């Protein structure tokens, strides 16, 4: 259960970049072999963001599928499960050919005090693909 440390690292990294700007949403890319459980990250989020510019922000976790190749028949594909991976064609052993350790902050949505009027009055976060978010 090191998601608390990871969540704290997220907050530190974001505030290092955006300073005191209010943060509405943080999107993280998470590989399959990071050993980090998204549910646990979400669980820690409210706690670690309290009394920071990220308080009330939403955490979005995008899983990065793991590319792999079958050692028996050479078939390649991507997997969204953890190793051991099996070839859907021949049932052979599939070894990942990427690290699977992606753990990066992709985007951060922040307040824009000098923004144009076009988003004025909009509920923060409505620009997100799914349109919903907690603030």
């Amino acid at each position: 259960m090191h998601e608390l440390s990871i969540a704290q690292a997220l907050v530190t990294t974001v505030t290092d970049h955006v300073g005191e700007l209010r943060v509405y949403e943080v999107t993280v890319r998470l590989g399959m072999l990071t050993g980090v459980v998204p549910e646990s990250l979400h669980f820690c989020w409210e706690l670690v963001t309290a009394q920071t510019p990220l308080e009330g922000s939403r955490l979005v976790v995008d899983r990065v599928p793991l590319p792999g190749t079958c050692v028996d028949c050479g078939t390649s594909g991507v997997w969204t499960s953890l190793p051991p991976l099996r070839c859907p064609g021949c049932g052979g052993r599939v070894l990942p050919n990427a690290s699977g350790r992606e753990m990066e902050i992709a985007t951060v949505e922040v307040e824009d005090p000098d923004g144009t009027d076009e988003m004025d009055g909009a509920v923060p976060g409505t620009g997100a693909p799914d349109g919903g978010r907690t603030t």
Partner: protein
Amino acid sequence: MSRLIELRTAVLAHNDDLASALRADLLAAGTVAVNLLSSPGSGKTALLERLMTTAVGQGLPVAALTGDLATENDARRLQRSGAPVRQVVTDGLCHLEADLVRDHLSGWLPSGTRLLLVENVGNLVCPASYDLGESLRVVLASVTEGEDKPVKYPTAYRWADVVVLTKIDLAEACAFDEQAFLAAVRDVRGDVEVLRTSARTGEGVDALLARLRRTADEVLGGAVP
């Protein structure tokens, strides 16, 4: 009013940067660090005590940092080898991080140390995410844990440079299927070196030490003094 900033920054960039700097500092000082990961009770400390005793006997300058949530018990055990040992008490943190390692080495690591063994907190999940500045990552499994540890903890095994099987003197007593274990290792890691050891009989300890010395020679260049 809001705007989207593309950060594309590693979450653990802070730890990774510290680890890279620490690795460079250690190598410049002629020290190679080895990060040892396993579940609790795998026999890491018993094996390390024997390994370090052998290293001291061979005149190899070895030192160890040992991480635990609480107590200095492991440091006391390892100190019986005669080598310098320092305990890192994490106060509940389930893994070591690069800053903890750096802070505990600072002002303590004896100059001339060739091999630094970092015994991580007993845990196969969290420590796998953290680079500690090591040049070699060793994952240990005991025969008493069963054959399927590698497929249960793929993240740890995926990044093992060497896998060490411990307590092989107990293999027969607990009907350990070594071929099944090796197959499980191959499933998640492909072809990786697997060493069989017993801290009780001493089997494999020389081979493991030779493996670590070889890494030190390769990384640092030149023969071990």
